[in-house]
Every structure is written in structure tokens, then in C-alpha cells.
């Protein structure tokens, strides 16, 4: 089993909900990322999604766009992203790390090289928001060689046939996008989420995480009633942005923010 599957199985066995946290690598500067990752874990994060900054984040809202721009302005490269994970792994071999971003990052260097370098750094898999399973045959072949997970997304607009196809293609977990919109949007409808997640769970063999629009402990706890866990991103990225000129303060702030969500999730289960 992969590190992601192991971690999620252990949580499930303990009757706990998974807390998946997203920050962008290199935001607000490359040196801030590894301490931030450890801070997320200290606050109670179960899985880390590390955004690979991209020049044209077409599926992201203003918060994650701004994080990506800060990281690129600070000169963050793909080699550094891999290096951040490798350095994180020196102290933390247990917490799964997924890279998240846009496919061109892997297209440009080639799937095989991307997968090899990611695996070597201690990355557990990826989430590409603009890669549907139909286009992922070659990538999945490369990932199989290197033992990487590929998480695919399901949307409120996905038809039942697509839900089944995506649920089967995804490994590690399934990412349910809780609303029609970009990351960090503001119109989360929990009732819709409940029905859709139930439909996914009927065909899925792996856990279902819900993300987009979850910003605090209360919204996390509400959504987690119907899913195996939640993904929180923009709210954390906003913290990075608000304290970009004082990066030393970021780890404690992130830990506190994640701890609130952790408590809400654990209290709500």
C-alpha cells in the first residue's frame, strides 16, 4: 500500500476524518516551505498537498493564484520543489505528500523523468487539476513504475458514468470538488455535497476527500459528516499571503489554524 492509502486506512480504522492541507511550494519564499510543512503536521494535518507554482493557474481562485505568483516571484523552480520534499522527508517519513498543480509542469520534463524525480524526493503522488483520466494513460504508466498515486477530481457536474470511471482511475483517494467554481470560492452547499459524495462512495473503493470552499473548523466539520475527510487550501494560503513580509511568524499561525480545524473534525466525528 502507498503511504497515502496507509495513512487514510489507519484514520478510518480509528474512526477519524482526514485533514488534507494545501500550501504552495515557495510561497512566500522557498525557505518558508519546509518549516510550513512541519507546522501543518504539528497542527494535525494528515496529508500535505504541496502546490507546484504555475504561471497560468486557470482553475484557481484569487488566493491560490496570488500564492503561485508569490512563489514564482521568489524564483521557485521545480528542482527546488522536489528538494523541499526531500528535506521534509529527512524528519518526517510518515506524512503523505502529494504535489498539486497543472500538467505542463510534468509535460515539459516528460512523465518518466518527472515521476522518477518525484519518487526519489519522497513524493507520494500528484493531483493535476487539468488532467482527466482519459488523458492520463501515459502518466499512469510512468507512475506505476515509480509507485506514485494519481488522484483525480470529481465535480458536481460529473455524470454517473464519469463518476464511476474517475473513481476507478484514482488512487490514494478521490478528490470531490464541492462546488462549481474555482478554489476558495464562497458558495459551498453542504446538502448537495452530501448527496453527491454518497453517490461516489457507492462506486468507490478508496476514500473520498472534499475540497474547494472549506475555510474553517465549522465548514470542515459540516462537510466531513458526509466524507472521509476534507481539503483546506485557500484559507491557509491566505495566511501565507497576509504574513509574507514576516515568514518567521507563518509556522505558528499555520499550526494554530490547522489545530482549530483538527479539533472541529475530531469533535464532530
Amino acid at each position, binding site marked *: 500500500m502507498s503511504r497515502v492509502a496507509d495513512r487514510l486506512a489507519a484514520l478510518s480504522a480509528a474512526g477519524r476524518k482526514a485533514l488534507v492541507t494545501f500550501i504552495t511550494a515557495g510561497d512566500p519564499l522557498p525557505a518558508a516551505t519546509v518549516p510550513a510543512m512541519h507546522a501543518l503536521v504539528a497542527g494535525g494535518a494528515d496529508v500535505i498537498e504541496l502546490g507546484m507554482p*504555475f*504561471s*497560468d*493557474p*486557470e*482553475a*484557481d*481562485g484569487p488566493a491560490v*493564484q496570488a500564492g503561485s*505568483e508569490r512563489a*514564482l516571484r521568489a524564483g521557485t*523552480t*521545480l528542482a527546488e520543489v522536489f528538494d523541499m520534499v526531500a528535506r521534509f522527508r529527512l524528519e518526517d517519513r510518515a506524512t503523505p505528500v502529494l504535489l498539486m498543480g*497543472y*500538467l*505542463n*509542469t*510534468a*509535460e*515539459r*520534463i516528460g512523465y518518466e523523468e518527472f515521476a522518477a524525480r518525484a519518487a526519489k524526493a519522497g513524493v507520494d503522488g500528484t493531483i493535476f*487539476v*487539468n*488532467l*482527466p483520466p*482519459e*488523458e492520463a494513460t501515459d502518466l499512469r504508466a510512468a507512475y506505476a513504475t515509480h509507485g506514485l498515486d494519481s488522484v*483525480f*477530481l*470529481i*465535480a*458536481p*457536474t*460529473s*455524470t454517473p458514468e*464519469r463518476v464511476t470511471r*474517475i473513481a476507478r482511475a484514482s488512487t490514494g483517494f478521490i478528490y470531490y*470538488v464541492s462546488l*462549481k*467554481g*474555482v478554489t476558495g*470560492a464562497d458558495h459551498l452547499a453542504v446538502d448537495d455535497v452530501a448527496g453527491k459524495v454518497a453517490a461516489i462512495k457507492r462506486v468507490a473503493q478508496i476514500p473520498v476527500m472534499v475540497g474547494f470552499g472549506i475555510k474553517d473548523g465549522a465548514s470542515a466539520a459540516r462537510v466531513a459528516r458526509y466524507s472521509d475527510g476534507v481539503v483546506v487550501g485557500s484559507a491557509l494560503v491566505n495566511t501565507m499571503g497576509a504574513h509574507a513580509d514576516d515568514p518567521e511568524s507563518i509556522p505558528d499561525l499555520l499550526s494554530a489554524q490547522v489545530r482549530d480545524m483538527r479539533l472541529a473534525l475530531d469533535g464532530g466525528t
Partner: protein
Amino acid sequence: MQRKGTNEPYREPTPDGHFGVYGGRFVAETLFHALDQLEALYREVRADPAFEREFHADLAQYVGRPTPLYFAERLTAVLGGAMVLLKREDLNHTGAHKVNNTVGQALLAKRMGKPRIIAETGAGQHGVATATVAARLGLSCHVYMGSDDVKRQSLNVYRMKLLGAEVIPVHSGSRTLKDAMNEALRDWVTNVDNTHYIIGTVAGPHPYPMLVRDFQSVIGQEARAQCLAQTGRLPNALIACVGGGSNAIGLFHPFMNDADVEMIGVEAAGLGLETGKHAAPLSAGLPGVLHGNRTYLMSDADGQILDTYSVSAGLDYPGVGPEHAYLRDLGRARYVAVTDGEALAAFRRLTQIEGIMPALESAHALAFAEQEASRRSADDIVIVNLSGRGDKDIMTVAELDGIRL
């Protein structure tokens, strides 16, 4: 020079929208259902003679088609080589080929019952063409435009506003066409239930590259018939500018099976390919994925999309339609690039010796056509797609001349 192609036969895109390894559908999952619906509707209407009649009636009565295939006699004489014929897309309603596609897509939006239209625009021609058809059908229209382009194309911004469209300046990234497209995709993902996205070029996720090409193919269908009628034979070469590549594919596609007709796409070399300040992904880029399709892109070693530069806002885009990427690799079409300076010289020459003021985009095709026609014998025929008129560019040219209007 570009490497020789594989010389494999041309094939139409696969059912899932692949032109060879290019094209496809690389978008957020939320958009899949809308793309499926659009594709299903499109396949249905293509088989429906009533839709075909309605589309062609609109092209005739609203757009003003067919456009002439004009023998540029003085230009031909000055160049001293091949006969130069100009496909006069500049004479369309709204002044460019863009309206062929927006008329077709507006009919699709109407059939889908979607009351809200969004579009991206660079030079503003596609935005104006979209605002125009939206006004005619009473649809609400929202056009995304990079804030730098809003500044350099203020005339078209005002035209869109007069037509009742909302123009939304995009301040992110390089503040040009690619950023407008990012923002249009974000809008669509949020409002997909009631909104049709009229993409203006032969790029984006399947079915757009095929659908826009088909609507634009009226250019080549007319040109082919007109050339046969006027000269008794097919042309030797077709020349068109390539940003996203819709006017080029519209001219090329109906000639695809005419093996002896050469196809030449002209990209924007900006200040020169060697300077890095250009917008020529087919000449100087590599394959990658952006805006829903795999194609040639200008990106760095990490896959970050590079800022592009061209005097022509309509060519200022780091990608290109996937069918062009495919034609390049096959060797069926070849792609070259001309600089700002060469395009401006061609702009002036056509204005002064033919009394036709071309768009700066089209002037790129003309600049290469001048070289190509000079090299060829007087027995050859070259068709140049004059994709748009230059009125929108007068401020840009005046500024380069140091004149304040």
C-alpha cells in the same frame, strides 16, 4: 529552417479530439459535462440541413459573404513573381474573419438555451464579433481582456461597450490574451449552467478546435471555388498569419486533400526570434499543455508559460491551435515567422499600392507572401488571407511614427 515532417497522411481528429498527439481535453472536471453537451449538440447540428441553411443565410445576409478573392495586380507587378490573390476577410461585418465563428457559435448557444455568453479577446476583434452577435440575439455578453490589451486597443473596447457587452480587464499574469483566457475559463467553471463560452480561435479543449475550424472553413471553401472560377486552377500556395490560428486553418482546411497546394503559416517573430521577444511557438517552442489542449507552447524548462511579444495584439499568444501543431509535425504545412518591422513595412506597402489597409495580424502574412511571391515564377498563384482590416491598428502605427492623434 524547420525539420522535415513525417509525411504521414492527414487525419481528421479522433472522436476524443486528438490531432495526432495534440489537442484533447485537458480541463477541470467541472467543465467536462458542458464540453460533452456542446460536442453532442455540434454533431447533431452538423447533420441538420436546417442549421446549415441558417448559418449560411446569416453569413450571406448579416456578415456579407462571400468575400472577394481579389487579384492584387499592382502588388503582383511590384513583387515581380507569382500572382497574388487576397482573400478579403477584412470586408466582413465587424472587419475580420472572427465573425464567421461567432455567428456559428451564437446559433449553438441559442439552441442550448444558454442566455449568457463569455469570450476572451486579445486585439478585441473576437470580442467585438462576439458582442455583435450577442447584441443581435439579445444575449448577455461578458468579454475578458488583458488590461494591457485594454489600453492598446481602446477603440475596440469602446465598440464592445457600445454593443452592450461588459468588458472585464484582467490584471493577472502578463495582462494579455492568455490571461484573458484563464479568467474566461474561471468564469465558465463557475457559471457553466447558464453560460456558453465562445472561444475565438482553434485552440482550447475539444470540441473547440474542430468546431471553430469548421465555422471558419467557409474561407477556404470560397477561396478554392473562386480561384478555380477566376484562374481555372488551384493555387500553388496559401499563406495566412497564425496566432491561435483560426484564419489560417479556415483557409487551409478545404485544401487538405489538394496535395500540391502548399500551406504556409506565418507567426509573429516580434523583435526577432533570437531576442526571445516574440510569439512564435511553432517556430521556437515545444509541445506542452495549456488552456485545455496539448500543442506547441512557449514555456521555460519548468513548463512556466513565457511572456510573449508582438506589435500585433491578435498574435500575442504563447500557444497555437493543436491542428497546426499536427500539420507542422506531418510536414503538411510549414510555419515561418516575420518580425514587427517586416509586418509594418507590408502594412504600409499594401495600403499605398492597393489602397487596402490590412490588420497588423494580416500584415504578417503579407510580409511573408511578398518574399514568397518574389521567389516564385509568374505562373504560380499565391492566396493570402487578408484576415482583417487595419482600422483598429491606426493608433499603434501612428504611435510608431511618433504622431499623436
